[in-house]
């Protein structure tokens, strides 16, 4: 557990989020959804695995939202992000709800998985849970 949940006065530190999706429309709306929350900031966006891995190494964000079918390979990106920035929690966000895709990401060490089409609230809840701001499901 992180230490910042201690003092009654200290506001919780912002959660730094990196968003990785090759669909520009989605990338933009995800950024907006995250930015409109007071406790989260988008620190980076990436449209392919190489970019995502590089930015993860530079920013070591608290959270990364990662498309499963990502140019360069979602599971590959997940493994590399975890290697460069072990503190980053990864939320797999995918148009695929089938168990094969879920298993593939789980194999790469991803624990949070959300199918595209979930509501913004579900998306934010998953992020906060992963960021340690909510009890584990």
């Amino acid at each position: 557990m992180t230490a910042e949940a201690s003092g009654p006065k200290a506001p919780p530190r912002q959660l730094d989020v990196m968003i990785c999706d090759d669909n520009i429309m989605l990338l933009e709306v995800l950024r907006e959804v995250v930015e409109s929350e007071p406790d989260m900031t988008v620190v980076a966006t990436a449209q392919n695995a190489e970019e995502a891995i590089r930015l993860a190494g530079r920013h070591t964000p608290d959270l990364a939202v990662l498309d499963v079918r990502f140019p360069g390979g979602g599971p590959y990106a997940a493994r590399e992000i975890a290697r460069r920035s072990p503190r980053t929690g990864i939320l797999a966000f995918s148009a695929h709800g089938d168990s094969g895709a879920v298993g593939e990401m789980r194999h790469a060490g991803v624990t949070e998985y959300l199918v595209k089409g979930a509501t913004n609230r579900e998306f934010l809840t998953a992020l906060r849970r992963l960021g340690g701001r909510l009890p584990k499901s």
Partner: protein
Amino acid sequence: MTAPQDSSGTGRPARRQASETAFTLLVQGVLDYGIFMLDPGGHISSWNAGAERIKGYRADEIIGRHFSTFYPPEDVAAQKPQRELETAVAEGRLEDEGWRIRKDGSRFWANVVITALFDEDGVLRGFGKVTRDMTERRAAEQALTEHRRLFEHLVRGQEQERQRIAWDVHDDTIQSMVAVGMRLQLLAGRMPEPYAAELAQLDHTVRDAVTRLRNLTFRLHPPGIDRHGLVEALTSHLSDVVESWGLTHSFEHRIDREPSPERAVTIFRIVQEALLNVHKHANASRVALSLESVDNGLLTRVKDDGNGRPLDPTAYHGHFGVMEMRERAESAGGWWSLRSEPGAGTTVEFWVPDLPSTSEDDVPTPGPAGDGASPDAAAGDGTSPPAATGDGASPSPAEEEGP
């Protein structure tokens, strides 16, 4: 044998002669086989009705001529007739299939057996030759092979097209609609009533459409069949689709190895159709799927506990579905059957051979645009074991019960 005493003198030879005459009549009368003899040098010394029918020569036209007359010039040039006699002498017999020439110069496809005939002292007395005209059978086999080849082409083309559409819908349409839905939710949070409610309603409609589109892409292309194999694809289909119909399901599988991609698709599509029939017609509450390796192939069974009414053959879909299932199985060289027992349910059962194939495996299965090129797809997935063990990437246990 209780033969009469030799004292009678004439009894045995007479009977022997009668039986030889009958035998000669048989040989001469048979129409389906050309049966004739060659002298040790390969010249024709006897002829029957079948040989006349097949080759077109009368006995008086052909007896005394060399049997290489029946061979095409290229075979004669290659000394094939002579080699066939030599082989028959060395090995006792020779069997061959190939083109032969009739009297009118036309060709026919022949099955030929040449047997070397030796007397009691081991001296070569000549050859027996039996010829069958296989032209029609060969044509029928070729027509069947051609039919199967065309069907496989059709299936492959159809699958590739479905897959392309599925990926397009997945990668583009669904993503865009998801983005639209999320933006509508953002807007709904910023707008006063009544706009907020209206936007929320719009978002709801968009998300329902996304769900329907996702189900459509699942039906169009079984997710994971080319990357995770047949068992995984069937498991997903049961949990993602069949469960949504409210059917309880079980799945038993004992397969020795992953079938070829074509076979996997054949089996998946038949099972998919059979399950759709259960959903639409059987009024069943549970369905049992089983898959096992039998006789160099895969035996699959889909059994429900429904009303067991046979499918209405006049209903277009039911009829078409049955035709398609049977056609798919038979084109793959297997069989397909449907048993209905009123009150006891319906069982669809089919077997398709799955021998390691030579030509089919050469056809690459197009992978997904993004992941297919990834180092992960190359390294990680290539090593995954057949899904029957139920560990690793596959979340499916060997037997899975629905809720």
